[in-house]
Structure formats: structure tokens, C-alpha cells
């Protein structure tokens, strides 16, 4: 993990502060992202993890300014990237950031790729646009990129169309496109969720190796706690639009300070545990995004909840250097985690 540049300055590459995104619906305004803050330092791998509707994808789309308006709008906060607030840029400046300094990969490669353009053209386009390459230069670079992401016979596949590729190969092409302009940050939003297990492993290994070779920071957005454990340096756990716990991966998994994080970890069957051991799931249902309650949004499903949780929403606060939680009862959670692990 690299948390500072060569000169030792601890300057984040991306600093999201108080990001708030709302959507107008028939049932009123829904605040999908509610004051989210987190940092990504150059070259590190950070994860946003959470279940459906927690706001992790909307956070990514907000960073890229891809929220459709109406019905959506970014209602507050800052997205500082390389010293500039992305939320203050005009559309022309923002286009230079998207696919230029920030690459992005989505879950469904078939809908992210243009079906009527050859994959070669889809890689050369950003190179010509952002890096002002000539068409022969960009073609050479595109074949290099296809080779880098492990597409066999890249000079022939260059002319192929997305439907001629398998799901895994399409995601490889997406990585080639996202990495084409040497971005400082690659955002992967559930990039491997739709793929088979062995292909998922291939794509994640590829993503990790190309970003670490290029010194690109990686923001992994996922619901899979195993993927997070395998790849992330730092983790942000989201629930109901907010970051509930944030810290180094080891701290999140082994010195858990939030009941929701603990609940998630107890819910997943683990390959390394004795088969047939009973799971200890979080009770209740995942709330609708529009469902907002007073105090802490986690309290309805939380067995640590106390009186105070109904009236006051706990702010996220540091419990040890780099490790923060938003819970009034985090000491109790920590005590229980210690008791179980000892």
C-alpha cells in the first residue's frame, strides 16, 4: 500500500468529501448517497463494499458525473481529483477526465461496448480523442493493449465485434479501453459479478496486475467480501447511503468496529470453515433506498442498538489511525470480536 507520493506528501489522488446525490421519484426525494467521504491515494487499491441499494454504484457514477439529471442530481459535497473539484468542471473538461485520467469498467461488458463498432475502433477512439494520436499510432497502441490484457492474436481480434467475444474477453477489452490513456485511477463497478468463477479470478488478477504495473490506483466497487479481502488495501463499508466503517483491510476484517460489518462477515459461508457450521445472518430486510428513519439507519437490523441510536445518527469518527466507524456502541462490537477471535 502506498499512501504518499515519492516526496512523502500524503496527498490523496481522489478525495471524496460529503458527497450527496439525490433522485426525484414519485414518492419524493430519495437520497441515495448521503454525505459519503473517502480517499484514494496514488497506486493503492480501495474498495467500496455493500449490499444492493447501499449507494456504492451511485457514488461511482457521481464521481464520474454520470448521474442522469433529471431525475438525479448531485446535491452536495466535493470530489477532489488531482487538486481539482470534479463537480465544478464544465462538461468539456469533464469529458477529458472520463476515459482519460479516470478509467471505468462496469458490470455488463455487453452493454458497455458499442455493438456496431469493432473492438479495435473502441480502443483507438479514446487514444485519438484524449492523446491526439494519429490513426496508425493508435492502431499500434490498441494492438499492444489487447495483447497486454491477454487477447490471443490481437492483430486479428482487433477487427472483431463485441458479439464475437466471450464475456471474459469482453471484460478484457473493457480493461484495455479503460487503461488506454494511462489513467491515474481505474474504477471497477461490480466488474466481475456477471462472470464465471474461474473467469472472474482471471479478470481480477489481470486488473490488479495492469494497474500495479502502471501505478494506477484501483477503486473496486463490489458486494463480494472475498474479493475485497483478496485485493483491497483499504475498505469502506456502505449501508443505506453512508460509509459506516472505513479502514485498512486487516482492521475491517479482524478489528471490526461496526455491527453491520460484523453482520456481513458472519453471513458469508467461508470455504475455509468447517462445512455445515451455522451462519449468523443479519436479521430483517434490506431497506428500500427511500426508507429513511430517525437516528442511525442500521438500528432496525442491529442487535447492539441502544436508546441513543433512535434519536442521534452517529457520525463517522476515527477509533485508531486510519480506522473509522459510525457507531455509538463500537466498543461493544470490538469487545465481542476480541472474545470470538481469542
Amino acid at each position, binding site marked *: 500500500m502506498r499512501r504518499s507520493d515519492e516526496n512523502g506528501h500524503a496527498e490523496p489522488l481522489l478525495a471524496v468529501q460529503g458527497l450527496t446525490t439525490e433522485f426525484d421519484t414519485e414518492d419524493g426525494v430519495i437520497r441515495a448517497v448521503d454525505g459519503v467521504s473517502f480517499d484514494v491515494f496514488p497506486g493503492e487499491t480501495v474498495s467500496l463494499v455493500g449490499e444492493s441499494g447501499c449507494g456504492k454504484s451511485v457514488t461511482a457514477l457521481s464521481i464520474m458525473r454520470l448521474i442522469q439529471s433529471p431525475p438525479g442530481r448531485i446535491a452536495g459535497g466535493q470530489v477532489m481529483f488531482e487538486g481539482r473539484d470534479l463537480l465544478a468542471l464544465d462538461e468539456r473538461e469533464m469529458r477529458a477526465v472520463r476515459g482519460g485520467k479516470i478509467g471505468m469498467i462496469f458490470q455488463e461488458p455487453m452493454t458497455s461496448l458499442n455493438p456496431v463498432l469493432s473492438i479495435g475502433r473502441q480502443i483507438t477512439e479514446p487514444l485519438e480523442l484524449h492523446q491526439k494520436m494519429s490513426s496508425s499510432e493508435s492502431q499500434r497502441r490498441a494492438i499492444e493493449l489487447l495483447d497486454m490484457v491477454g487477447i490471443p492474436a490481437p492483430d486479428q481480434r482487433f477487427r472483431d465485434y463485441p458479439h464475437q467475444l466471450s464475456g471474459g474477453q469482453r471484460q478484457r477489452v473493457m480493461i484495455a479501453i479503460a487503461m488506454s490513456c494511462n489513467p491515474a485511477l481505474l474504477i471497477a463497478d461490480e466488474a466481475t459479478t456477471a462472470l*464465471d468463477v474461474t473467469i472472474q479470478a482471471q479478470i481480477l488478477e489481470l486488473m490488479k496486475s495492469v494497474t500495479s504495473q502502471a501505478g494506477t490506483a484501483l477503486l473496486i466497487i463490489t458486494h463480494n467480501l472475498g474479493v475485497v479481502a483478496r485485493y483491497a488495501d483499504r475498505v469502506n463499508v456502505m449501508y443505506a447511503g453512508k460509509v459506516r466503517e472505513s479502514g485498512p483491510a486487516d482492521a475491517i476484517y479482524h478489528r471490526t468496529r461496526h455491527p453491520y460489518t460484523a453482520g456481513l462477515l458472519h453471513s458469508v*459461508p467461508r470455504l475455509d470453515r468447517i462445512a455445515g457450521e451455522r451462519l449468523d445472518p443479519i436479521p430483517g430486510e434490506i431497506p428500500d433506498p427511500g426508507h429513511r428513519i430517525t437516528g442511525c439507519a442500521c438500528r432496525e437490523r442491529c442487535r447492539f442498538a441502544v436508546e441513543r441510536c433512535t434519536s442521534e445518527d452517529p457520525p463517522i469518527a476515527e477509533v485508531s489511525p486510519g480506522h473509522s466507524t459510525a457507531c455509538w456502541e463500537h466498543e461493544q462490537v470490538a469487545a465481542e470480536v476480541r472474545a470470538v477471535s481469542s
Partner: protein
Amino acid sequence: MTIQSSPTAPPSADAVSSTPLLDVRDLRVHFPIKRGLIFQRQVAAVKAVDGVSFSIRPGETLGLVGESGSGKTTIGKAIVRLVQSTGGNIEFDGADITSLKGSSLRAVRRQMGIVFQDPYGALNPRMTAGNVVGEPLKVHKVTSGKGEYLDEVARLMETVGLNPAMMNRYPHEFSGGQRQRIGVARALAAKPKLMILDEPVSALDVSIQAQVINLLQDLQEQFNLAYLFIAHDLSVVRHISDRVAVMYLGKIVETADARQIYDNPLHPYTQALMSAVPVPDPRIERQRTRVVLSGDIPSPIAPPPGCVFHTRCPIAIDECSQALPESRELESGHRVACIRAGTG
């Protein structure tokens, strides 16, 4: 290839007896690919399931794990006869059900419940939850009279953790986890002995998935159900299963009990699959070795000759492309179809 449950293997629970409830021998399901508009001729076949054998004892869970196109779903459909098998036979409760028709088929189906993956697509949106759950009661004439019917529907809903007061609501008014509970209640309605669970928790969020897994385990204990648990997620399959069968391109490559499959996987595909599944613990992840398979899963229309896995196998030798590997029992109850397994 034959995979047999070893008679010497100790039963995993007291409730598990040694005579199989379901016994599948050399099952084949090939889907023809046809050409021509008027005079259709078969030009090839998708060998979705190609010579699969396994058995399930009463009260036991067999996990069937594999990636897309491995044929795991087709096996489930062939057992309930939603697709017709091309070869092999299926015995249920001692009787051959491979080519049953009409009322005798319906009688057998009554003893099998099936739960599908997609809790949104598997329920008729125009039927209330109560009618969905109660339909098998009517089809199989389980209850007589409206009062008994309603009592039974309410009881079934309670059994799966749903409030019977929600009987008159429609599927869209339920969450994904609740819909899956409705699907489970429907499958239970006719009091089956065997449940075929096809990716029953894959579409659910982590916290809801755990609730449904616990429910399935409770129901199994309560009603002594046998489960065929079909899924791609090895951690889930291993968690819920007594024994696990690993499929690749229409064939079972390895069967072992749930403990052995993790402690001592013998087939190179099982090893790769195991390695591809991350464990939610960064400390353990840092120590694990990773076997990353190259290439994609070949098409089941033209599977590779010899061992179907040899094109992606890290330890394949020339012989692997020559002949289909025989399934061998290397430990008690642990069968593997690989000529290199156990050779170091």
C-alpha cells in the same frame, strides 16, 4: 464414467440411510442442433449432460457445482422430467422414472419440489402469494375443502418464515428474499422427499442469502428432506452439502464429502475452482496459492476430445487428449476422473 456413492462411506447424519432415494446412472441429455427450413436435419448436438452418475440418500444434501454451461441445471430439469433425457436412467425411491408419463409421472413429481434461481421470474405476477403456495395442493389434491386449504397455505407460509397475513399480496410486493421463501413454500406444499434447489440463493444479497441458507437447513432437519443443491458458488455449496460433485462441460469430474473437497481436492479443475473463490479474510488470502486457469470454457457443441478439461488443465499430458479418464475412487467416498490425480 461412473460416480457411485461408496457403500462404505459413513452416513453423515443419523437420518441418512444407505439406500439411495435418487439414483442417476449414466445420464445423458443432448440437445439437437437442426438446420434447414422444411427438411430439418440434425447437424450437431449440445451435449449438456454427458454420462453423469450420482445418488442421493434420504435426508442428504448433494451439492452440484459448476460454471455456466457445465450442465448442472439440465440435470435438475432431467430429474423432474422437464427435459427428456437422451440416455441413462433415473431411479427414484427404487422405481425407474426415466420414461414415465401421465398420471404416474405426476405422482412422482409430487414427491419432488423444485426451487429456481430467479425469485422475480419464477413466480406468476398475477397470482397472490397464497395461490402460488397453494397451487400444488390443488394440483395434487392434497387438501379437501376451502378451510383445510387455507389452513395449510397459512401453515406453509409460517414454516418458511412468512406472515400468513400476507397471503393476499402479489409477488411484486415482496422483497427478493421473501419471494424466495414463497418459492420454497410452494416446493414444500406437496410434502416432497427430494428438493431440487437450482441456484436458490445466487440472486440474493449476502445478509438475505444467509437467512435463506439457514431456513433450508432447518427445513431439511424438520422434514428429513433430501436436497440436490445446484450452484456455482463453491463456498455456499460446501457450506450446505454433505457431499459435493464438481461438474465441467457435462461431466462430473470429482465427488467427495464437503470436508475432503476443500482439504484435499484431487482434480485440477476442482483445485482451480477452489483457488478462484476468495475467502473473506485478508490474512488467509495473503497466504493462499492461486491457480488461475487460462482461456475460456470450451463450447459444449464441440467438447475437446479425451478429458474435456485438458485444454485448460495446468498438468495435462499427451494422454489426456486421447481417452476419456475413468472415474477412480482414490479415498473412501472420494472419486475423481483424472489420470493424473494422486500422482503428485
